[in-house]
């Protein structure tokens, strides 16, 4: 039964998840791009391109300008995202998956770095959830999607870390749980706030392009 389940999540389950994720994401992102913006008739005071691209790049870093949102949220959010990226893109086993699916591969990071990134990422997520409960403004602003996104992102991290260290269950059970949790994330992501994994760059582009056009220094 365990073998059959693992085979399903590695085979049919993954095919379904990949199909839903790719169709959903391509549809949503293209749809946003095709909405376009009305052409501004004003004389440009700067470049849309430079403003857009610079904003896409610069907003990937913690800056003092962002502290208006609250330092805790920004720093903890940053740690979570960086930890998530490191474990996702630089763990040997994940690179094996990318190589099998995309044909691309790159060097892995040492296990110690991955472990540290995963632990920091998990800790940051827990801290952010606690903060969401404690902070009255955040609590009021949160809806079910925020908690759903948290669970969907947390489960792959947690099961992945448990799998690396073989905590709690057998390897095969943990591997099945880990893959299944990722598939759940893939299936739901395009239709929730988690679509920001791509749409955030479009948002940054538009923000930057508008500002660039107006000649605002970025």
């Amino acid at each position, binding site marked *: *039964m365990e*073998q*059959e389940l*693992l*085979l399903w999540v*590695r*085979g*049919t389950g*993954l*095919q379904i998840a*990949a*199909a839903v*994720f*790719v*169709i*959903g*994401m*391509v*549809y*949503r*992102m*293209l*749809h946003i791009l*095709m*909405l376009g913006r009305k052409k501004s008739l004003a004389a440009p005071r700067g470049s849309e391109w430079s403003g857009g691209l610079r904003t896409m790049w610069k907003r990937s870093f913690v800056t003092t300008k962002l502290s208006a949102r609250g330092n805790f949220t920004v720093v903890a959010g940053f740690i979570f995202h960086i930890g998530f990226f490191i474990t996702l893109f630089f763990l*040997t*086993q*994940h690179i*094996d*998956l990318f*190589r*099998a*699916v*995309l*044909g691309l591969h790159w060097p*892995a990071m*040492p*296990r110690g770095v*991955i472990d540290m990134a995963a632990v920091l990422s998990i800790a940051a997520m827990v801290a952010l959830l606690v903060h969401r409960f404690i902070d009255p403004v955040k609590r009021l602003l949160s809806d079910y999607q925020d908690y759903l996104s948290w669970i969907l992102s947390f489960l792959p991290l947690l099961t992945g870390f448990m799998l690396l260290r073989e905590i709690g269950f*057998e*390897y*095969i059970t943990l*591997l099945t749980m880990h893959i299944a949790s990722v598939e759940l994330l893939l299936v739901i992501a395009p239709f929730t706030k988690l679509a920001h994994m791509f749409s955030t760059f479009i948002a940054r582009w538009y923000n930057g392009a508008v500002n660039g056009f107006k000649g605002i220094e970025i």
Partner: protein
Amino acid sequence: MKEHETLEQRLHEQGVSRRSFLKFCAAMATMMALPPGSATAIAAALAKVKRPSVIWLSFQECTGCTESLTRSHSPTLESMIFDMVSLDYHHTLQAASGFAAEQAREDAMKEFNGKYLLLVDGSIPLKDGGVYSTIAGRTNLDLLEEAAKGAAAIVAVGSCAAFGGIPNANPNPTGAVAVSDIIKDKPIINISGCPPIPAVITGVLAHYLTFGALPALDNLGRPKAFYGETIHDRCYRRPMYEQGKFAKTFDDEGARNGWCLYELGCKGPTTHNACATTKWNGGTGFPIEAGHGCIGCSEPKFWDAGSFYAPLPAPAADVTTVAKAAVIAGAVAAVVAGAIDRGKKTKAQQSREKLTVDDLKGE
């Protein structure tokens, strides 16, 4: 057919010393992780036990399981198996053939009804009335059901008998199934592996003879003493896995330095068997020690779990083509949705009526 003599008498006749016998018992006790004092208990029990009759039925199989048992170098614990039991029917090993062979089986079934052990290797085809494998003109299903009726217990030797194995692999043209899919009312013990480790077969039989019952089994009916841990749990290359040292090809520096074979497709982490501890060829080694990853042969559906050389994280089905098709489908859907949006926008623009002075007057 006379009652079989005791094991001790039989071994004595064959010139096996008491000392060798005790060594064998100690080895069995150790292998099955029994308490230290149990070697003498096994010896006492085995010495007195009457050699049970064993009927060995071979169905859809490659004889690899029998080879595994008999081709191990001599003298071995495995060779003693044939002294511990009375192998009354095994169509590969017995001297008799044709009607005489079938007669031996029928005699043993009659004589030791309710007491004999039934060992089965190979899967049983059910499709088209089971015509794909017959012995003496009778289907495997027919022979199994008949022999199972009078058996004290059934031992499914090898992955084919235990889980369906290779004949059961996709697309399973003969409708092959495992023993446990057919027989529901007898104790069945699965000794999986392609082939299974000879010492595991011996260990299970010794346990049965000593305690008169089958050993503790896992959820797939396999003896826990041998299938309780994964290959990965007990692999001597495990520290390499923990350190992230992986061989990338079968001939790179990592492979030569004994690095972990995970990326070369080793299924050790998801495979339960005793290869890493009991080992093969008289304790010489096991596949990973020879530089090849585990193929997971003691687990159900091992033949359908993707390539033996694809790492565990790699998909077991073609995800790339699905993703490519999904990109096109998503793009088409977006273009259609965009066109509908544009149509609505244009329509709204066209149907918009300009506010006139008359409209204002009417207010």
